[in-house]
Structures are given as C-alpha cells and as structure tokens.
C-alpha cells in the first residue's frame, strides 16, 4: 500500500534512468541522508560516533571498493587491507612532505597512488583466474606491509613503523571533534558511493559484469578485457586507498603497517559476502553488520555472564566470540547466500503487495 509504484509515470528517458526511479525510494533516501547528516550529529554520543559510526563508514568505503572488484568485475581479491595501507601511508607522506597541500587533495592523491599499486598487482589477473588469483593477491597482502615496515622513509623513520596522522584541516577549519570527523567521512563516503552507483551502470560497469559472468563471451562481443580488468583494479584500489587514508586520519589517528593485516582483508571480504556481492547497498549493510556484530557479541557475552553470575576468564569470552562469529557467518551464508541486500530486495517485493497479496 505504501510502497507501490502504481501511478508514477515516466515521460522521459532521464526519468526512466533515474537512480531511484520510485518516489518512495527517493524520499526514503532523502530522509536517510537527513538523519545521517543532521539527526546523528545532534543526538549520537561520542562513543557511537568514534567507535561505531566512523569505522562503519570507513569500512563501507573499503567494502565498496572490494565489491567493485569482486562483485562487479568478478576478480576475487584478498589484498584489500594492503591497498588501504598504501592509501594511509601515501596520504601521510603527501601531507608530511608537501607543505600546505590541502588534506582532501592528499586523500585523492593517496587514492591515485593506491590505484597505481592496484594496477601493478592486478596485472596477474590478465593470466590468472579464480582462486589462483585470490592466492596471488595474497602476495600484495604480505609484500606491501613488509615494504612499508622495511623502508622506514614511508613512516618518516619512526622506530616501530607507526605513523601519527596530522590534524585534518580544510580551509582553516579543523576537523578535530568526533562529530566533525564523522561529518567529513560521511560526506566523502556519500560522494564516492554516488560515483560508484553511477559507475556500475555506465559502460565500464556493464563491461565489468560481462567479464564477471563470462570473460570469453565478453571478449567475443568486443569488450576489451585487459582494459576492463585493470580499470576495475584501479577503481577498487582507489576506493580502498581513500578508505585507508580515512581509517588512519579519521578513525585511529595513528596506524602501523601491521594493522593492515590479512584479518582486515578477510573482514572486508566478509562484509561484501554478508551484505551482498555485486550490490552497492550490500556493501553498507555488510559493513554495518560486521562492525556492530563483535561489539554486540562482546556486550551480550559479558552481560550474559553477569546475568548468570559466571565470571568468565577473558580468554573464554574472546574464544566464544570467535565461535559465535564463525557460526553466524556460516548460518548467514546458508540462510541467504546472496546476502542482506537480497533480503532487502525480497522485503521490497513483499511490501509492494502488502497488505493485499494476490
């Protein structure tokens, strides 16, 4: 009743190709943005902003990047965290070595550096496919953090390879409080998400999907596979690079190369699988799920233990978390292998008929 497109006629191609063709979606999106930009900063506590919302947004961006590569172009990558590391360290070095460079510019430059590195490590994808490629991307995952530690120039000769990011300042305005950092990250993520949404329905996006579905067939109908794959690697790494820069600048403040480890790569891979492979919305849903789940489990297990007057040793709680986390991943994949985005789609189908199904 509420969610129905009946009566919404389209009289031009532009209307037909709008991002959100249905009015309810458009208004829903506006409400969501209004809540995110106005409501959240007004009401959310600092804990929520710094510990949940900012990492959620940063991880969404990284998941978006990985989703472009894996979900749309079909190239499985396990090196996401390494590209984030490139972004973080590139942004740090641009800020450090180029005096007066606006921070947003250095973010973009960091993304571009990550894109170049992504292309370099994407070259094997021209010959290697599937899991062979996935393992090959592990080379990036192990090589890049090693290089960042080894060449201490990257961390400005700090002893342990830890970098502490410079304050974020745009046109004299310093983004130092949690709310300001949140708003900055939110704005960047919104712009990049919009770009991604448009990118995947452009000609290159369609080329990616053709390559993903069957590369030989794509080649036969005249898609340049080399170009499509390398662009996918570049764009994906660009997103991951910016996510890495934000991870360092807006979330943690100081990072070390070893922080960008395989675990982080897997976490981001989990996000897109749980959220939905090949879906922009799915990247966000998955990021939300994986960011909130450990916190939720932590609270649940600690409180649950208090409730039953058990005093769990610290080790047990973290192990139980591991078990529940693994179990939930398995459960979710069995129940809905296509991810949360697919659930949302089903919900929309149902809503369309509600409350009078056929």
């Amino acid at each position, binding site marked *: 009743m509420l969610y129905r497109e009946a009566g919404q006629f389209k009289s031009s191609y532009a209307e037909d190709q709008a991002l959100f063709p249905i009015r309810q979606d458009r208004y829903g999106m506006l409400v969501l943005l209004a809540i995110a930009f106005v409501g959240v900063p007004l009401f959310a506590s600092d804990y929520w902003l710094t510990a949940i919302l900012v990492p959620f947004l940063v991880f969404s961006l990284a998941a978006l990047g990985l989703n472009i590569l894996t979900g749309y172009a079909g190239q499985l990558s396990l090196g996401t965290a390494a590209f984030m590391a490139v972004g973080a360290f590139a942004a740090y070095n641009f800020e450090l070595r180029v005096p007066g460079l606006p921070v947003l510019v250095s973010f973009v430059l960091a993304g571009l550096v990550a894109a170049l590195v992504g292309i370099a490590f994407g070259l094997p994808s021209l010959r290697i496919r599937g*899991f062979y490629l996935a393992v090959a991307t592990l080379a990036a995952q192990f090589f890049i953090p090693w290089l960042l530690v*080894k060449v201490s120039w990257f961390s400005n000769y700090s002893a342990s390879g830890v970098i502490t990011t410079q304050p974020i300042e745009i046109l004299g305005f310093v983004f130092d409080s949690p709310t300001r950092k949140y708003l900055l990250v939110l704005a960047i993520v919104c712009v990049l998400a919009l770009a991604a949404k448009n990118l995947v329905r452009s000609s290159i996006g369609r080329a990616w999907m053709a390559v993903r579905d069957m590369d030989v067939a794509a080649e036969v109908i005249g898609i340049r596979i080399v170009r499509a794959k390398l662009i996918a690697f570049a764009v994906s790494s660009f997103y991951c690079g910016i996510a890495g820069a934000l991870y360092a600048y807006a979330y943690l403040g100081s990072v070390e190369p070893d922080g960008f480890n395989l675990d982080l790569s897997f976490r981001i891979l989990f996000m897109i699988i749980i959220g939905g492979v090949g879906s922009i919305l799915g990247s966000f849903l998955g990021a939300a799920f994986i960011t909130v789940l450990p916190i939720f489990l932590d609270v649940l297990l600690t409180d649950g233990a208090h409730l039953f007057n058990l005093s769990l040793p610290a080790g047990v709680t973290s192990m139980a978390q591991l078990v529940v986390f*693994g179990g939930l991943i398995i459960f979710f994949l069995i129940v809905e292998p296509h991810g949360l985005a697919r659930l949302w789609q089903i919900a929309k189908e149902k809503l369309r008929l509600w409350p009078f199904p056929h």
Partner: protein
Amino acid sequence: MTFFFEVLIGGLLAGVMYSLVALGFVLIYKASGVFNFAQGAMVFFAALTFVGVQEQFGLSFWPAFAVALGAMVLLGVLTEKIVLRPLVNQPQITLFMVTIGLAFFIEGLAQLVWGTNVYPLNLGIRDEPIEAILENFDMVISRFDLVAALVAGVLVAVLAVFFQVTKIGRALRAVADDHQAALSVGIPLKTIWAIVWSVAGFVALVAGLMWGARNGVQFALTFVALKALPVLILGGFASVLGAVVGGLIIGALEKLAAVYIDPPIRGGIESWFAYVAALLFLLVRPEGLFGERRIDRV
C-alpha cells in the same frame, strides 16, 4: 658447494612439511570443488585434540591418535551435513567464505575446549643432525626433517593406493572428475563428501602432529595454512602430485632465498617470498604445474 646442497636439502625437507598441509586442501578441492580455508584450523584442532587428550587422560600415542582421528572424522561428517549440504550449487566464492567462517568456528572451539596454552608435543624424534651424514658428507640434515619427509612419503603412498585400488577411492576419483556423471552412475555424493572431509581430517591430524612436534601446539599452527597456499597454486589445486612437488619447490626456493637473498636486504622476506615466487611462476603457467588446462567455451 656442500653448503649449497645442505641448504637445498634442508629446504626440500621443509617443503615436505608444506606438502603435508597442502595435501588436505587438494583432497577437498578435488572431490568437491571447495577451496577449504579451514584446513589450517583443522590442523590446529587435530593437534590440539591429540595433545589435550594426552594431557588430560594420560593416554599413550595410539589411543590419543585414535581419539583425535575420531574427532576429525566427526568434524568432517558434521561439516558436510550442516555446512556444505545446504550450499550445494552455490558459487565457489560462497563456499570459500563459508570455510573461512568454519575456520573461525574451529579455532574458537578448539581453544574453548582445550585452553589457549602452548603445548609441547613429543613424538620421540630428536631434532638434531644425523651423525652419519655429518661425518661422511659434512652436511647438517635434521633427523626430524627426514622422518617428516618419510611420513609424508608414506602418507602420499597410502593415499595413492587408497585412490587407485579401493572401491571408495575409485568413487572419489569419479566424483572429482564429474559430479553429475558420478551421481548418474549411482555414486552417493553425500557419503563421498563426508569421506573426503574425514580423509582430509586425517591428513590434517598427521600434519598437525608433525608441525606440532616441530613448533609446539599453539594458535600459530593455523598460519601453516597460509604457508601451504603458494604450494597449492604452484602445484595446481587439484593435483596430489602437484602438492608434493610444489611443496618441494617452494621449500627449496624459500630456504635458498633466506640464505642468499635475505641477508643483503636485511631480512623478513620469508613472509612474502613464496607468494611472489608462485605468482611469477603462474604468469608462465596460469593453471599451476599439474593443474588441468582450462578450455573455454562460450
């Protein structure tokens, strides 16, 4: 020159240890097309169960081995029943992800049951140079490495016989070849998968014992799986022989690189060297040494 050969042989023997882990991957990939990331966790679980049973109940080697094997078989059967069966016909990436979830689950479970301590594991083989070789050839070859190589050799031989001669083995090969065709001649796919996971559990147990005896049974055992991945892509995912030969090559290259390349750039290349070596090799042969060449049809 003696030194070179000493390093080379040491590397080959270390490579055998990688092969042990890689074998488990290959078995499952061959039979069900699942890239089982949980193999490392299974190695850890098997070794920990073995040591845990020994510590808690004071069992000697063979009873503890039997209990651990029983646990691995149970794990394999349950995995097939609960995790894999509902996911038949899903894309490979989904199956891969589910095994990562499984890895978390097994790692957590193993430590919940047996605790997070580092257990020493003593198989009664001393990790010391063999004197005869030291005297005659002036090379340091560890007795333990040699035994490990022997165990791996026996294991591969047993698996080969199992696959070639027994009825179950033939069914396994048929399933590996073509699921549909195997089903249509009446091979029960579910049973076969349960068996394969159990056999992989057995391989994990052997690998876990060898690695555990070398490094102690601890959480770091799960990272052994990461060491086996370059071996896999080098040898080809679906080839038992590839796992062995790949392991030898990677082991040898890694040791040689550690001796000849590492010192000039001062360190730490073992974390990625095997991957880069395998990657460079893949550029020449994208399907690995013994992988099946893919023929693309539209």
